[in-house]
């Protein structure tokens, strides 16, 4: 089974400033880490490989320093990594990002492309789906578990808030993993030390099947950010008064209404 996992380098902290002119994150001097959602995707791929064998490639688009998360993915167990890095890719919105990733995948032999369902910096949750569209393959988001795998299809459990669905997708396909569906394994210091050479293939736009610079980066991005701002934090408090029985009943009803409780 050939598995690809898309990963992204995101700021290591939530205290990141925005550039009011470009509407992009000011990443200089800010520590970075692998998008936490992608860790669930990578763990799902690693668990699947344990089940049915195969090869895992971690893929990212980013500046040269994004190599660090690819090495991290390899330290966690990925077999190889691809860095798509080019100045022409800078400033990409979701459409241009998804197109670039689909181009990096095209021409490779692959069965499942894993993504986290969203990133902690952009939060759009669209790149996985759009990549699948560009690749012309089925996709599903909010995946909580891989139920079954066969040579030509995969059955996955999907949580759609109101209901849970088991879907069968023909291979190849794109799976966007939900959060907290597994406990991602930790990167191994030993595995990283034992790497004799960097297992990273670096690609530029010129290496892609479609090298047209108009499709990538700012040029290929129809989304223009008009204004960016911190949302207001809203905290609500509701007091419940009455006897122990009354307050317990009211609290249970409230939690059920907010779907924190459900009948078993």
């Amino acid at each position, binding site marked *: 089974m050939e598995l690809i996992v898309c990963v992204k380098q995101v700021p290591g902290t939530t205290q990141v400033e925005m550039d009011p002119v470009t509407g992009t994150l000011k990443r200089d001097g800010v520590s970075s880490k692998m998008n936490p959602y992608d860790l669930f995707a990578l763990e799902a791929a690693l668990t699947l490989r344990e089940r049915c064998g195969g090869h895992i490639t971690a893929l990212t688009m980013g500046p040269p320093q994004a190599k660090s998360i690819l090495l991290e993915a390899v330290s966690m167990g990925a077999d190889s990594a691809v860095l798509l890095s080019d100045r022409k890719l800078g400033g990409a919105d979701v459409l241009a990002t998804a197109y670039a990733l689909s181009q990096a995948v095209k021409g490779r032999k692959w069965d499942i492309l894993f993504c986290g369902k969203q990133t902690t910096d952009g939060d759009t949750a669209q790149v996985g789906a759009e990549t699948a569209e560009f690749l012309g393959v089925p996709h599903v988001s909010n995946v909580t578990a891989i139920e079954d795998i066969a040579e030509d299809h995969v059955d996955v459990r999907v949580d759609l808030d109101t209901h849970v669905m088991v879907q069968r997708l023909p291979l190849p396909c794109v799976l966007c993993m939900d959060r907290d569906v597994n*406990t*991602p394994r*930790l990167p191994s210091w030993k595995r990283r030390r034992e790497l004799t050479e960097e297992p990273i293939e670096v690609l530029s736009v010129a290496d892609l099947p479609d090298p047209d610079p108009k499709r990538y980066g700012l040029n290929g991005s129809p989304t223009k950010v008009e204004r960016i701002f911190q949302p207001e934090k809203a905290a609500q408090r509701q007091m419940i008064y009455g006897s122990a029985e009354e307050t317990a009943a009211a609290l249970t009803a409230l939690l059920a209404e907010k779907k924190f409780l459900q009948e078993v």
Partner: protein
Amino acid sequence: MAYNRVAAEDLAVFRSIVGEDRCLSGDKILPDYGHDELGGIHSMPDVLLRVTSTEEVSSVMKHCYKRNIPVVVRGSGTGLVGASVAVEHGVMLETTAMNKIVELDRDNLTVTVQPGILLMELTEYVQGQGFFYPPDPGEKTATIGGNISTNAGGMRAVKYGVTRDYVRGLTVVMPDGEIMTLGGSVVKNSSGYSLKDLVVGSEGTLAVVTEAVLKLLPLPKYTVSLLVPFPEMDKALAAVPELLRSDVSPVALEYMGQETIRCAEAYLGKKFPDHQHPAYLLMTFDGRDEKTVAVEYDRAAELCLSLGATDVLIVDTEERKSSVWTARGAFLNAIKGSTDLMDECDVVVPKSRIADFFRYVETVSRDTGLRIPSFGHAGDGNLHIYICRDGLAEDVWQEKLSAAFTAMYSEAAKMGGFVSGEHGIGYGKRGYLASQMGEEYVALLRRIKAAFDPKGILNPGKIFEA
């Protein structure tokens, strides 16, 4: 010693001092005030006073001293040895309403707090100001007053020491109501006996702490933990002295066995990031930047592998720290949730003897037929060993428990260890302290107690028999 119970006239006095709504008696006192976190020892106070100031504490103590009424101080009630249980009834002073931060002294690197502030509240406050209060006991909802009374340690003791090392000064109320200041915000102090250090760890038997000046450090900017699996316990624990005498300086160095990890997984309903190995060391490194810390943990990783570690796993992001340390923090409650009742042994042994002691615990478990999960602060020799009742009948349980405790404490003593590393003696461990330390030692403790508290009204029957 004969004490007076709280009478109607006393209640009137207490109401006049703290007000009607903060003076609770009889059925108004919730049953939780009759025990601490471990249970097993139950006794209700006659009156519960929610004090808010040093002056109130002083007025209450003056009255109790005059009337010979016993007084127990209680914070969050998270103790594990019955130290805050009113075994002689009388007055319980609850300090949780005295939870203010009095002053942050940026020049002397100290923070002055009231005793009822919770450890987690203090930590959050000082970190928000760019400072660091290193003592890190597992129970974050404990009050600082409680931490001071047991000289609580926690996981960072390896590098930073224990609560006593961070108490610069105390305001205390003596049993007769006298208000005294012990120590201050100075770094050095050789001015006579260090009474402040005597009060720290005295489990509420010498004086009532109403304010504390705590030492702070600049906040380390970067922290990384390593989770190191080993093929067997012996190899993991043999690595501890090697690590500590090498040129690495871990903040924390914890040992955990697979059984305890499985227990935490079941309790949290969440998998630990790695659980297939029999034994683990978990260590943390901190420093001002990523590079400095990396140099240190690289050395530690190399050393661990040379000492037989199977792998070295990096715990570097908030998510990873949370997945590992949440499980570590849940060990006590996980074990507690796995049985109907448990009692704990908080021995401290020389670091070189930890493996020997764990092995001895296994033989005690075999001999008594009791389930005894354990984990430990490997870096400082303080072990937490939990004896589980698992449905045994009361008489069988008491007999086996006593046999297990006697065996373990006497073995710890032979190794040069002591009854408690950080939880204290309280009520539950008095007998074991007395048998290890001997009559002369306990007599000296009594004379010290008498010098502070001639009538013996403060927390009677704790540490040693009244």
